[in-house]
Every structure is written in C-alpha cells, then in structure tokens.
C-alpha cells in the first residue's frame, strides 16, 4: 500500500518536475513561462505519434523534446523580439496549441479527444536487482524509467549549473538585469530565448512521459493542467531547484493519493485545489516575512 503510493507519487512527480525545472531556468533567464502546458501537449502528441507502430522510444523522446522546444521558441521570440507581454502570450499559446491539437486530431484521425494507436512503444522501466524487493526503498529507486531518473539527476545538476558554470552565471545576469548585461557585451534576449527552448524541450519530454510513460494513449486533456502545477512548483520553490523539486514531489504525492482518498470520502476535487492554494499561502507568507524584515529597523544604528 505505502509502496504503491510512493511509486505512483514518483511517477506523477516526473512530468511536473521536468517542466518545473525547465520553467525555473526560463524564469531565472527572465521569462515567466505560462505556456509550459502547451509545450507539454505538443510533446505528448508528437512523442506518441513517433512511438506508435513499434516506433523507437529514444526517437519519440527526441521528437517530443524538439516539438516542445519549437513551441517554446515561437513563444519566446514573440516576447523578446516583439515586446509582447509574456503572461498574455503564454495564455494565448495554451489556447492556440490546444486548438491546433484538437483540430489535427479531427482533421487527420477523424477522432475527437482521444487517440489510440496500435503498438505504441512504451518507455521501458528498469528494476534494480537487489533493491526492487526491499520495502519502501524498492518503490523509491526501482521500477522507474529513464525520464524519472533524468528529472532527479537534473535537480543537483541545475543547482550546479546556475552557481558554477559560465552559462549559469550569464543566465542569471541576463534575467536579473538585462540592461547591465547588454552593456557588458552579453546578448540577454538571445540568452532568454535559449532558456525558453530548454524549458520547451524539458516540457516536451514531460508530455511524452505522460503519453508513452504512463498511459499509452493520447488524449487532448492528457496534460490536465500540469503546466500550471509546474508553474506553481517553481513559484513555490522561488527559483531554487531543490525547493522546486520538493514542491513537485508534494504535488505528485497529492496526485497519487487523491484517488485513494476519494475511496475514503475525501473528494478528489478538494485535493486538486491544494497545490494552487499552497502557492497563494506561500507567496503571502513570503511577502509578510519580507515586510517584517523591512519594518525591523534599528533607530540607533
């Protein structure tokens, strides 16, 4: 029972974590990405199509990442080169991509909403010998696929990248102060575009994970608001990768237990509200703390 919950919580965490880490990099680079969901959706569809008919799953992942990246680049260019507001473009992108996907399903497959294809290659899951049978540890470490491993490896890697690499330093500078960054000879807009492409790539993978890692069919609602959950995760984590991962894990856990709770009389809808409510509560606490700090002034300094 507990093993089951842990395992499915980790599975539910993976797509959110991937997209959140991408969105985090994007936000550090200076763009709040409201369109992660759109990138996940395009990745899910493309990954699913490539994996069908005994397709290769590495190829499917690559294609999904690429689809997400292209979607992100389109959005980013409109924001950086045409001075459009990122929030509005992100919301608009979610509408356009959802429309395009449904349009495509109807025009091409003459199906509305759900698409099942024969012989879809799923992401292989690996059991770790010796660990798989252990209680709790087995559920945590065994029976996962490459994307889950990758998403968790990315957490410390992101910390290291931001703090210790030239690219990470330049990314932080471009996001925090584009004017000075430009004056020093950097190209903050291009850096921002690259961070968007990265966010799109990871979101595309996250989408593919949902389509060929979890369910094996494609549905227009497959993303189910996880782009916004990812947004909630990196807002919750305040751009720190470890805290963001904790947020994603918490939301994955909610996702995993809501079905079980429903059996015990706790409505799933109320559990679904929790991630969003937590972000509001958390932002409020942060603002209150900041205000406290500002008001604590020593007159005799």
């Amino acid at each position, binding site marked *: 029972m507990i093993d089951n919950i842990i395992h499915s919580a980790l599975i539910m965490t993976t797509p959110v974590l991937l997209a959140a880490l991408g969105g985090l990099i994007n936000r550090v680079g200076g763009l709040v990405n409201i369109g992660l969901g759109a990138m996940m959706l395009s990745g899910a569809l493309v990954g699913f199509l490539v994996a069908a008919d005994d397709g290769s799953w590495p190829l499917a992942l690559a294609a999904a990442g690429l689809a997400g990246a292209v979607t992100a680049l389109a959005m980013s260019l409109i924001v950086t080169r045409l001075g459009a507001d990122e929030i509005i473009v992100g919301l608009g992108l979610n509408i356009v991509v959802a429309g395009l996907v449904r349009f495509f399903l109807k025009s091409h497959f003459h199906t509305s909403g759900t698409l099942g294809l024969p012989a879809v290659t799923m992401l292989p899951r690996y059991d770790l010998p010796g660990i798989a049978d252990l209680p709790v540890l087995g559920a945590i470490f065994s029976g996962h696929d490459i994307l889950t491993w990758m998403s968790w490896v990315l957490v410390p890697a992101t910390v290291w990248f931001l703090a210790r*690499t*030239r690219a990470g330093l330049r990314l*932080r*500078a471009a996001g*925090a102060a584009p004017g*000075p960054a430009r004056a020093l000879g950097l190209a903050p807009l291009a850096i921002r575009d690259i961070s968007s492409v990265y966010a799109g790539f990871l979101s595309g993978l996250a989408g593919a994970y949902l389509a060929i890692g979890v369910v094996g069919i494609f549905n227009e609602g497959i993303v189910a608001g996880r782009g916004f959950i990812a947004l909630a995760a990196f807002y919750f984590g305040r751009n720190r990768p470890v805290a963001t991962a904790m947020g994603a894990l918490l939301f994955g856990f909610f996702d995993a237990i809501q079905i079980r709770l429903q059996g015990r009389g706790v409505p799933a809808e109320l559990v679904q509200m929790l991630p969003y409510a937590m972000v509001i509560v958390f932002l409020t606490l942060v603002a209150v703390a900041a205000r406290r*700090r500002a008001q*604590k002034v020593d*007159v005799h300094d």
Partner: protein
Amino acid sequence: MRLGARGLVRRFGTLTANDRVDFAARRGTVHAIVGGNGAGKSTLMRILQGVDQPDEGSVIVDGKPVAFRHPADAFARGIGMVHQEFMLVPGLSLLENLILAREPADALGRLDIPAALAAARALEHQAGVTLDWHMPVDDAPVHVRQIVEILRLLYRGADVLILDEPTAVLAPSQVRDLIGLLQRLKADGRTILFISHKLDEVMSVADDITVMRQGRVVASLAAAATSKAAIAEMMIGEIVDAPAARPASAGTAVLSVVDLVATDPRGIVKLRGVDLTVHAGEIVAVAGVAGNGQDELVAAVTGLGRRLRGSVTLAGVDIADLPPSARRARGLAYLSPDRKAEGLCIAASIADNTIAGHHRRPAFSAGGILRRGAIARHVETLLDRYSVQRAASDLPISSLSGGNQQRVAIARELDGAPKVLVSCQPTRGVDIRGIAFIHRCLLDYRDRGGAVLLVSEELDEIIALADRIVVLFEGRRTGEIRRGDGDIEAIGRMMLGERAA
C-alpha cells in the same frame, strides 16, 4: 593625449547641448569636467562612451579622431564608464559581478573560482582596498558597489575611466577614499575623466580642469594655475535675468518638524532627529550633499516615506500620521524632484496633469461626477497664467519641453493656495530662462504669504532664493544661516560635516 574631443556639436531640436566642445585629457592624469546643471556634461559623456553620436566634430583617442557607434567601440579603445546609477547585477555576488562576461572558465564552461578570486585580490591590491567578494551585491553599501564598478572596468582592461558625479552618493570619508583610489590609479598610468560640480573635490583630485557652461567649453586649464573661486565664477557666469532676492517678512509658523527620524525605502535610517520650522512668507532651503537625509525629510513631510519618530505639524495640526491625501487637503503642496516618474504622469495629457489632485474640489466635481467644462476652463486659465507653450491641452504632456513640463507641475501645485510648498530640485533639467521663471514663481508665492521648503543641490539657487538655509549632514543639522549672514564657503564647510559655531 589619451582621450579628447575636437569641435563636438550635438543638437536636440533647438537646444544645442554641446557647442564646439574641445578638450584633451593627458595620459596618466585626472581631468575634471565641471559645470552646473544643463552645462552639457552628460551629453559629452554619452558621446565619449559611444552611447550617442555627435552631429559635428569628433572624439579623439590617442591623438586620432574616431567614430564610436556603440559603447563596445569605446570599450575596445580602453574607455570605460562608471555610471551614476550603478550597472551591477542584483542577485549576483561581488565576485560574479566582477567577472561577468569575462569569466575565467575551463573548456567545459565551469567557472574557475580560484582564478577569479586571485584576479580580484590582485585588483584589490592595485587599488589599495579590501572587499568581501562573496557578498551579494544587494547587501553591499553604495561605496563598495562603486569600487566594484571601477575594479570591473580595470578587470576588463579599461585604462580610461569616466566617472559621472561619483561623489554624489558618498559620505565625506568615502569621498576621501575614492580620491585616494583615483590617485593610485593615476600613478599606475591610467587616465581618469572626473565629472563633477563639487569644486572642493575637483581641486583636490584634478590635474587639469575643463569648465563647461551652456554647452560650451569656457576654459581648459591646469588645476595648479587656478583657484576654486575662479572656477566657480566661470561655471556660473552672469545669471541671465536673475530674480533679485527680496527680504521677506516672515509670519507665523506654518510647517514645523520636531525630532524627525526617518528611513529610506530600504529601511536604513537616513534622518536622525531634525528640527525645522518654516514660517508664512518665508523660503527655507535645505542644503547638503545628496543622500544626507534630504529625500527622507521630504518623504516624511509629504507622507510618501517612512517616519520612525518625531512630529510634523502643518498650521498647528499634527499631520505625521496622516496619509498624503489628507496632508494635501490641509494645504500641503509638493513639487517632486523626479518630474518624469513622480511629478507628472507622462502618459497622460497636459490637462489631466494640470487638474490631477484638484479634480475633487466642488468646483470640478459633484457627487463623484466630473464637471468637464469647468475643468477645461480652469486648466486653460491656469496654463495661460503660467505661459505653458502648447498646441492643445489634450495632447500628451510628453510633447512639451522639460521647462514647460515643470511649469505645468508648478501651476498644479500652486493652484488652490496651498499653505506650504515642498519644492525639490525645482529647476532640474530646465533651461536658464525657465529657471528664472520658476524662481520668480517661488518668490511670488512667498510674497503672497506662502511658506516654501526648498531642497536643492544647486547652491546658487539656494543662495538666490532662501531666507534661511538649514544644512544637513548625515541626517543631522550642522547649521543654519540667515540671509546675508554667511557665505558659500561656510555652507560648504557645514555640508561636509563641520558644525556651525
């Protein structure tokens, strides 16, 4: 000659900001460029660092004319600028700011922190300072940020440093440190262009001085061959149509602050117990080097900033805890030093800017409904009275010149007979004719019985207008001078912290 200009001309519309400017800074010297507001210093700086291009003439580098299209062109020639608003990146450490865009790193892009730190230590050694390089820039005090900016230019290979009013944000001891730093850099063969209007500093640091006035170079001479008084005279020239200051007859106390303690927006105490009274029919000026508590005094009086302690009384009523709206309703008017961001709503029309804040008066609205006709008539009368040159009053106020914009702000603030006017940098960015007009407005208001609290960085303006001068230094009063009691020298000494006898 390391850096100079020959016949530089830059026009903005009818205004000639730089009119055949010549100067030459020798290698290994500190060259000061001095002049009052609107003398054309900032335009010259923008051209020298490639941000702006001249209409005629050229920048001279190492004796040859060059054309800078971008700041990068100037930088490639070793010319770097320390800006008044610093160009450090928040959220990064001092070290990260130092190396940004020139990071020591291996082939994989990993930062070589020890190498960066070694470079930082070497620069520290050259400059004779010690810094905590791992401190986030947000926590660093302003003089530390300035040093990091200077060291960053050195790190990036600049050997000509342009410093724009570098001491405006510094305390006097920090000014001495900065001057020491500049002298060490000079001894290493670097060339320093020092822009300022503070003559004490200029005389103590500069080898050569170029004096500018109204866009022209008035004189270029060796510091050793001149005196502060001579430079001051060249800077000021003859003031066109200067309003003669009339002795005023002061009436009852209108505005008084007692033991006022206030913080800046970051929560740092900047005003440490100040007493001050302004009477009806009196102009009281606050003099001081920028950042010595003037902004916080104004913010505490207007209600736009945080007061920790002390009282603010307007016409006998304690207003210290009232919001800005209630203070205005009791007769407080406020002319902002930041015209574009606070004094005016640049995106709104001339008329909207003229009526804003008065639109709730019974003459202009009833039951929350605007009387648009009455408002339009009033606006026209007011704008005509203040001779605001305009094509139509419903045009955006951004279509007006700086001087006309300031007239709109003054027209609005003096409308409705306020009891006291808090007037900050009233002539900043205004041309010489506009200055005379604004001065006359302030004096007329005083003569009608108005009380004026004047805050200005222009000592000439203060001396021309004030009936009394209160000097602030590090948040405290260092002295008070009545009209005719003291000279510029005495005020200058008090501004640097020397207490009046």
